């Protein structure tokens, strides 16, 4: 588990993803009354990871990607598909944005908890007691 410290990379990627998603949600929220604005979103962390969970690696088109020495690019932003437009063409719903924001925050907390508990394990293996 700690040979290459992949769990830290995973927690890092998860926290990063939560941060980007939260920024997108904040943008939607700020534009909740802008006429013609389309609500935006980025893909789930799960789908970005893909089948990587099996071999515990991030999926990448080239192995030089995602080796965390240079960080991966921001995930692609797309218009949220299931949104219903207001009469002024705005597709932001404050309620669902609120939910997405809370989800992003929970994902971020989860990632930090994973990081911290791994750190605790690592520390206790170093300490002499």
């Amino acid at each position, binding site marked *: 588990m700690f040979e290459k410290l992949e769990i830290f990379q995973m927690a890092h990627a998860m926290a990063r993803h939560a*941060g980007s998603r939260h920024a997108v*949600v*904040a943008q939607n929220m*700020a534009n909740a009354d802008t006429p013609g*604005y389309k609500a935006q979103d980025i893909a789930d962390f799960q789908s970005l990871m893909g089948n990587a969970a099996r071999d515990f690696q991030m999926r990448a088109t080239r192995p030089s990607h995602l080796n965390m020495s240079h960080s991966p690019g921001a995930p692609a932003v797309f218009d949220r598909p299931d949104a219903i437009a207001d009469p002024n063409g705005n597709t932001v719903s404050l309620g669902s944005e609120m939910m997405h*924001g809370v989800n992003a925050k929970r994902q971020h*907390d989860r990632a930090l908890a994973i990081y911290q508990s791994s750190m605790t394990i690592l520390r206790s293996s170093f300490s002499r007691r």
Partner: protein
Amino acid sequence: MSEFSNALSVSSSGLQAQSQRLRHLSENIANVDTPGYRRKTIAFHTTMMGSDTPGLVETGRVRMDQSDLARIYDPTHPMADESGNYEGSNVNLMIELADAREAQRSYEANLRMFEQTRQMGRSLFDLLRR
């Protein structure tokens, strides 16, 4: 961390836009009985400065509502014409109040988002503490 500062700047632009809107709404409400007053409206639009910068919300120019002014019959009014009517304002209190409620709701949502972003940043810094 830059995602957090992006989120903070977007949220604060939202707060600013909503408070601007509320300012004009209160101006309209205060002038509901001013003869000849036309209600002011502002439009929101998104600014995209670059591909990676977030879409901040901005308020556009203030426009006057060009709908007809209300004609009020009061022959004793100093501005009344020969038929005894004078032109009031075209402010509809119901519309202004509903608009103000919407602005308040959006303001609160942006504030909530701002607070949430700060919490996420703080929990990140807490990792450094120990």
